[in-house]
């Protein structure tokens, strides 16, 4: 094996060169600190009926039976109300995500409660409703849809639960929002034969006995499935 001989001067030169090459990188280097960040998104889904939680139509005259009773003063029905608030329900929806509002009558018909052991019945389609959006979210702009009322342009007849009354059409902006965004009014009517309602007036219908007819209308707010 052949030995390699280096003079002290050469060795010193090599080591010095090595040190200075290290020095050339001796700059301040960057420093890094880490912080964990957590975000908890809790679901918020609330509905508040702040007006018109109980609606009652009282038929006292032949005109009432012939023309019906309506909460819409601008309605084509002959016997429209002189005051809007009497047959109106108002509600707001606050939701952190897209939502749908299901609604409908609890029973298949109105049920008479004051006449004998065999309850009288009244078809649900004698009652109709018109929908209006009062908040920032509106129908027909991608935020809200309403199939029963054809984007709130048609008087719909009362349906059996569950029917999607208002929903998100998944084509535009989110319908999530607070009460300023999602504020609605339902204007009720009975026996006016408007829109999708029973086209025959109460006075023309057979089997409608005098009674107090009631039904619960359910509303259920849920996360949109669209």
């Amino acid at each position, binding site marked *: 094996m052949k030995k390699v001989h*280096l003079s*002290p001067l050469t060795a010193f030169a090599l080591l010095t060169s090595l*040190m200075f090459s290290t*020095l050339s990188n001796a*700059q*301040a280097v960057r420093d890094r*600190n880490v912080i*964990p960040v957590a975000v908890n*998104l*809790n679901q918020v889904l609330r509905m508040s009926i702040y007006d018109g939680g109980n609606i009652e139509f009282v038929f006292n005259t032949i005109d009432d039976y012939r023309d019906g009773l309506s909460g819409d003063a601008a309605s084509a029905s002959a016997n429209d109300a002189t005051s809007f608030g009497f047959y109106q329900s108002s509600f707001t929806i606050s939701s952190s995500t897209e939502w749908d509002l299901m609604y409908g009558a609890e029973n298949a018909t109105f049920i008479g409660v004051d006449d004998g052991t065999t309850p009288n019945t009244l078809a649900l389609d004698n009652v109709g409703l018109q929908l209006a959006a009062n908040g920032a979210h509106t129908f027909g702009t991608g935020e809200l849809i309403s199939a029963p009322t054809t984007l709130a342009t048609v008087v719909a007849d009362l349906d059996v639960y569950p029917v999607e009354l208002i929903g998100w059409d998944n084509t535009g902006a989110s319908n999530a929002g607070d009460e300023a965004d999602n504020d609605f009014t339902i204007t009720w009517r009975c026996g006016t034969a408007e829109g999708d309602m029973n086209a025959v007036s109460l006075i023309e219908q057979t089997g409608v006995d005098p009674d107090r007819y009631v039904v619960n209308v359910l509303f259920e707010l849920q996360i949109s499935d669209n």
Partner: protein
Amino acid sequence: MITIVRLYLFMNLLRNSVLFVALFSITQARGQCSPCNDPAPVGIIDYNSARLSILSGSSVDFNFQTISDYKNGITKSNSTVMGISICNCNSEGGTSADPIAGSTITGYSIYLDTDDPNFTGLNPVNSLPLCALEASATVSAGFAASAVTVTGTKVALDQIPTAGGPIFQEDNSPLQIADRFWTTDQISIDYFMGVSPASGPCALSVPFIDAAGGYVPDAYYVTISFTLVPECTVCIDPNY
């Protein structure tokens, strides 16, 4: 073969005591830079240094519980406080000159960034965009003879290299920046989660309540970083 060469070389050096002492002295002189308020001993050559110290707020939580949270977002002011140490070695009591030509620190930048591609939910299918989180930095103490050029600017969280630029910057170029020390020179960080208007690409994502498609309720997390990058005439960081 290599081992034999090195042993022989070492034996030669031992025989020359003058060379050995000289070599030892040179090695001893290359020390780590001392803190700027702790001058290095006379005759010692130090290197420049830059350090970032988190003094408080080492974790941040955002809890969205009301419609107002979703509509307005959540702002956390002064949530994190950091100390900054910048040390130019030739400034330490005049004990030594700048050891490397061109390495004098003329400024520095602090970046908000992350290695993660997005916020991840406990259900990994769910995610939030990084840019939903923004932050800004302001001086909370110190920085006398200020050369601060970027402060109070909202920067969206992004992956390295962050497109939003630095969240905090001092720039005294071409002159040397004043030394900073973490006990006296501190910045505070404000965080903005889901707050509109977004400064960057998140216009369609915040506020959360208006985001098209919405965000699935979940517990999301991400790890963010604050990176201190010193600047000098020859300092080049390819990542920034």
